[in-house]
């Protein structure tokens, strides 16, 4: 089953990380050395990055690569916060 997912979609949370850090597409694009349209295509899922670009983005946000890219859809942020609140954690 995962094989079917691998060949079709690579999910990413670039837009979420950008919003959280207050980084514009242009800033991220300049930091990782691509055109800012490419960041837009990545966020929209229209382009799958090379391993090098994916790692540069992960390094830029200082998180492991699997927190940004995944073969499975990411949990919505609202669900994560709700779960954290229910567990008594600070969101």
């Amino acid at each position: 089953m995962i094989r079917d997912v691998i060949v079709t979609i690579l999910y990413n949370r670039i837009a979420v990380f950008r919003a959280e850090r207050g980084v514009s597409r242009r800033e991220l694009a300049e930091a990782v050395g691509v055109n800012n349209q490419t960041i837009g295509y990545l966020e929209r899922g229209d382009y799958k990055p090379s391993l090098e670009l994916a790692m540069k983005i992960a390094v830029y946000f200082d998180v492991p690569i699997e927190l940004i890219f995944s073969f499975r859809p990411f949990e919505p942020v609202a669900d994560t916060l709700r779960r954290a609140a229910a567990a008594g954690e600070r969101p």
Partner: protein
Amino acid sequence: MTLLQKMDRLVYATRLDRLIFMKFQPRTFRWTPLLVMAVLVAGYVLMARTASSPGRSFLIGSVIFYGAFMVAVFLRLFGPRFAGPALDERELMVKSRAYAVSGIVLASFAMMSCFYMAVASAGLWGLWQPHAMSDWITLGFGFQAAGNLLPTWIASWIEPRPAADEDD
């Protein structure tokens, strides 16, 4: 104001700086190249039909053909980016795919044209073939225009619709 300053101002006033320094956003042309190719063919046919005794039709054909030729050059400049100092990995991928596919298409077309010429030169079925020098020269320019239009057209289909630029 010195002459150089005046020339500088002229470049910015005519917006040539956008063209020279590639400051414009690339555009996709998904149908225009096909239209330009059709116009090229129409111009060529008009010229070839009257190449033996050039007259008004030949002139009109020339204007149509070379007008379309110029449009092909500009479409390549304003279409998906193929040149420039900073093509990123996605643009390089689009460029290489577009050139690979158009190379195959052009090579196949050239091969089919050779077979056609073989049949036409044998005088079978009264097929037309280029005779005059202008026929061949125009055909060469036609190939050059196709070499500009095909990659632009293919890259325009490979390239996704532009993402809304939130920063602008």
